[in-house]
């Protein structure tokens, strides 16, 4: 029923929603512009490589002392390593949850515990990794990547389960109807269709690995480390950012923090855009 009050109510509410929306996005824009402006002064070649010749550092001939190149390499290496550990187990476990699990006690317990683990603060996985590190190799890249992979495992499990569960059942049943076995259905029909959403879950996991401070603080990171060997400590961008932001002795070193923040945002956005483009390419192939 439309009376004059409902028209006024609608105009008011929509005005409010528009204001909130534009307010939020302009705040976000202001924040990014502020970060960008403050980091312009800092981003020069010395910021990345210290005083040393860039080519020498890239090929590993000389170490850099001041630059953040080590941190970039460290972040990339820990993200890649932890994804290598967690993705196979996560994807196959998610397929189990959506295709093979039934409504019995064990499977329900499994689902509850995965939901619980997905909500735990990252510091708990840091503690777990610290205990492992103390008893085996000491804090190093390997232990850090293992702890991170345990942390993102529930995310990948839930994301894979969601992406397989959201596929229309008709594809599965049609595939069985023409004689395909269960594994053939999963591998050739369901998996390619679930791939875009699965990649979203993986991107989220990747973002959490790349940006995590609490876990690497206890297991892998240090303020200065020239190498990224498996059993060495490494520098990571978010950890350096945290140290600079909390314990910077002068406004100059705070500028370094702005630079690290911008580089970290650019790195993660770059990875995200790559995955997004891949998703768009896959989705356009699947139109029928």
């Amino acid at each position, binding site marked *: 029923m439309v009376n004059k009050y409902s028209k006024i109510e609608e105009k008011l509410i929509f005005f409010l929603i528009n204001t909130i929306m534009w307010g939020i996005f302009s705040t976000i824009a202001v924040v990014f512009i502020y970060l960008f402006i403050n980091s312009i002064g800092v981003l020069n070649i010395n910021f990345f490589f210290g005083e040393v010749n860039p080519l020498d550092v890239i090929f590993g001939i000389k170490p850099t002392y001041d630059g953040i190149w080590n941190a970039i390499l460290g972040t990339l290496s820990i993200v890649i390593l932890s994804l290598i550990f967690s993705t196979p187990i996560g994807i196959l476990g998610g397929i189990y949850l959506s295709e093979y699990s039934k409504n019995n006690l064990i499977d329900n317990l499994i689902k509850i515990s995965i939901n619980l683990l997905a909500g735990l603060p990252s510091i708990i996985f840091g503690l777990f990794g610290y205990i492992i590190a103390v008893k085996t190799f000491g804090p190093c890249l390997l232990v850090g990547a293992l702890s991170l992979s345990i942390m993102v*495992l529930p995310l990948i499990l839930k994301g894979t389960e969601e992406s397989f569960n959201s596929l229309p059942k008709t594809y599965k049943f049609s595939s069985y109807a023409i004689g395909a076995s269960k594994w053939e259905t999963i591998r050739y029909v369901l998996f390619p269709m679930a791939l875009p959403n699965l990649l979203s879950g993986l991107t989220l996991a990747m973002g959490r690995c790349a940006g995590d401070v609490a876990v690497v603080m206890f297991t892998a990171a240090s303020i200065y480390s020239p190498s990224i060997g498996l059993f060495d400590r490494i520098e990571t961008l978010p950890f350096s950012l945290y140290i600079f932001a909390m314990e910077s002795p002068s406004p100059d070193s705070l500028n370094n923090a702005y630079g690290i923040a911008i580089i970290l945002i650019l790195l993660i956005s770059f990875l995200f855009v790559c995955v997004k483009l891949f998703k768009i390419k896959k989705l356009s192939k699947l139109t029928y």
Partner: protein
Amino acid sequence: MNKKIQDLITAYIIKINSIISIFICGAILIFLLLNGLMLFKYVSPIDFIFGSIWNINKGYYGILPMIIGTILLTILTLIMAVPISLSCAIYLSELAPFKLKYVFEIILETLTVIPSVIYGFVGSVLLVPILRNDFNINPGYSLFAASVVLTIMILPTITLLSKDTFQSVPVELKEGSLSLGSTKWQMIKGIILPHSINGILSSILLGLSRAIGETMAVVMVSGNWAIIPKSIFDPIRTLPSHIILNIKECAYNSIVYYAMFATSLFIVLFIVVLVIIVEYLKNKEECK
């Protein structure tokens, strides 16, 4: 290869992977329980949960200020984040012009993968000085600042998930309402919102569980005084911040070490309570 054998082998591999996942999840929970319950050999549970002083040197191990801090932070973040993100979701699904919608969605998706240290860093160099200098709130690090930072952090998650839920409301229902002469806002209020309550509650749960466990951003803006706040501009300390602040300096098997695990058990309890509340609300809506 014989299809049946292939099926059996792959089913076997998938089940092994899920067993590995479960084993890891179980190991973490047992690890927490064993170390956390050790605390109660030294400190009584009543003193731990309801004691309002945390002073290691004098033997006080009360985490009540931290529990209250976490509860207040959650409630304040909820109050701030839910209206804003639902407004943005309504805007994105109903009101926005098509090209603009795409741009906003990409911005929001990129915001979900940005690490939490960046939010904490921006909060500590942008928000806190504004509060301190322009609004004369000392010390500036406060419950309010932490809520604002957490709101912006979970806003993209809730907005995107709610938007997906709004868009999956059947078109017949929406067009039926409009054809009966309702205004667009009446359609949103009467059809879309009630239909999507389940999805909205799930997205709020997802956002909130990230907010409760969020360590780094809160540590950087909340002030970390272990007191019960008297106004929203007082500093607070939350349970995850408490863990990270104490764990670095405590000895391996000391009382404080066990207390940190007991604190983590509390965080788990929090999340379980939240999940139960949300499930109850969802069931109530379905029975209507």
